[in-house]
């Protein structure tokens, strides 16, 4: 019953000096007080910040940032990828990555026009929309570790008493994009976990593809 909502909003900004041809992708995980009494009102919890960081490393190559640039060195898209948790019953990471991947897969950037007189970029409401191309679709699978046994998709009660977590992110071609482990485990546990992760990731990917709209 963990529920999250992911939304993507765009703004314009000047690209950085180091990367004058790139746009920006800003992922953020918001765990408000609504979803669990663990989170205090007013400021972001450590868990949320850690998750936002993980998402940022995961999505570094997700899309061609050059595509997001409108005028090199002057104007580029900034895409704010926000994931808000509504109900936290454990394993928010998997839900967040799935929601975000589905949202990214269904992002349509509005057409833009450059006004010659001022050189400004404006959105053209009659110009149609362009789909955001993704290099890969990340899917995350989390397992709880208890001694040397693993339990997939932990609920909150299981997360409270676990020894550690293994989170593995695959993409749609079964490459490993990220792997985090916070437990003291042996090699075979990881290999066994990866076998499970592959199966689970394909199930999640099929759900994501069902939801995607073609146009």
């Amino acid at each position, binding site marked *: 019953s963990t529920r999250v909502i992911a939304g993507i909003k765009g703004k314009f900004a000047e690209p950085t000096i180091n990367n004058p041809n790139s746009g920006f992708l800003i992922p953020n995980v918001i765990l408000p007080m609504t979803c669990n009494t663990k989170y205090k009102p007013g400021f972001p919890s450590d868990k949320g910040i850690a998750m936002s960081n993980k998402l940022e490393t995961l999505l570094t190559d997700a899309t061609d940032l050059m595509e997001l640039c409108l005028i090199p060195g002057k104007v580029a898209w900034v895409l704010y990828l*926000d994931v808000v948790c509504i109900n936290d019953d454990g394993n928010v990471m998997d839900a967040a990555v799935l929601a975000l991947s589905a949202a990214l897969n269904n992002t349509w950037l509005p057409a833009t026009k450059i006004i010659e007189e001022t050189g400004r970029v404006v959105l053209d409401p009659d110009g149609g929309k362009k789909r955001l191309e993704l290099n890969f679709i990340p899917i995350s699978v989390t397992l709880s570790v208890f001694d040397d046994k693993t339990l997939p998709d932990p609920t909150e009660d299981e997360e409270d008493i676990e020894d550690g977590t293994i989170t593995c992110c695959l993409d749609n071609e079964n490459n490993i994009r990220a792997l985090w482990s916070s437990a003291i485990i042996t090699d075979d546990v990881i290999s066994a976990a990866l076998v499970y992760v592959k199966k689970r990731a394909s199930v999640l990917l099929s759900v994501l593809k069902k939801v995607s709209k073609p146009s």
Partner: protein
Amino acid sequence: MPDPKRNSGPEDAIEPPVLHKESAPLKSVDKNTTRTDGRKWNELRPLFLKVGIITKAQGSAYIEMGNTKLIAAVYGPKEILRREEFSLKGKVNCEFKFMPFSRAHYCEPRQNFEEKMISKCICDAMEGVILLEKFPKALVDISVQVIQDDGSALALALTAASVALINANIEVKDLVVGTTLRYFENSDVLVDPTAEEEHGPFSKFTGGAGFHLAVLPSLSQISYLKQTGKIEQSQARDCIETCWETCLRLATGIKNLLQESIDSDAPR
């Protein structure tokens, strides 16, 4: 100001300007014509209400009115922090937040001035309705998150918060039902305006006034009233009456939905 605790992105990001065709904002609307979404001037949008969807909260409500969707959660009564003064009456704390993608423009993850003000409004309204003497030295936390804002967010937030309180089995005097009304200079009104009809900076209409009214239906009392804009005194009274009737209409619907949810709950 960049927030060091969040991934904030470039500081100078601006909302993308949209190429508009030149058109002056409208000043009035004809009472007899249908609105953009096909409603009459006094017709409410279809309502959807579901309680108990947040498993960890004592009470929760998800409410949808047309395209405006929001979720309210109630945690409590819980023990008050020792720093607070001892009080014979319970305390209420409310947090209201627009999700970053809920409005036409991007909402910062930190609470801004408007959200803090609405939080205080909900807090005041709920303090008047909850029987605070029943839980001294305790705190009730109400949290409202707006998933999508298509007008009338404040009124719906009041309604959702009160439904969540009832779902949390916290004793209240009555259900709180809220509606919004838009008044135009030619004396026409629109009940339950969408975001583009509502009185505010993003509206395509200008002038006139906006009313937010929350009512306790069984006790026939006003819980919260807010008016923005300019309106004559005689017209104001009529607007409040119209709002009141709409609230009563809405109240019967909400009470039926609440009754269904209580009946369908397994006995605890």
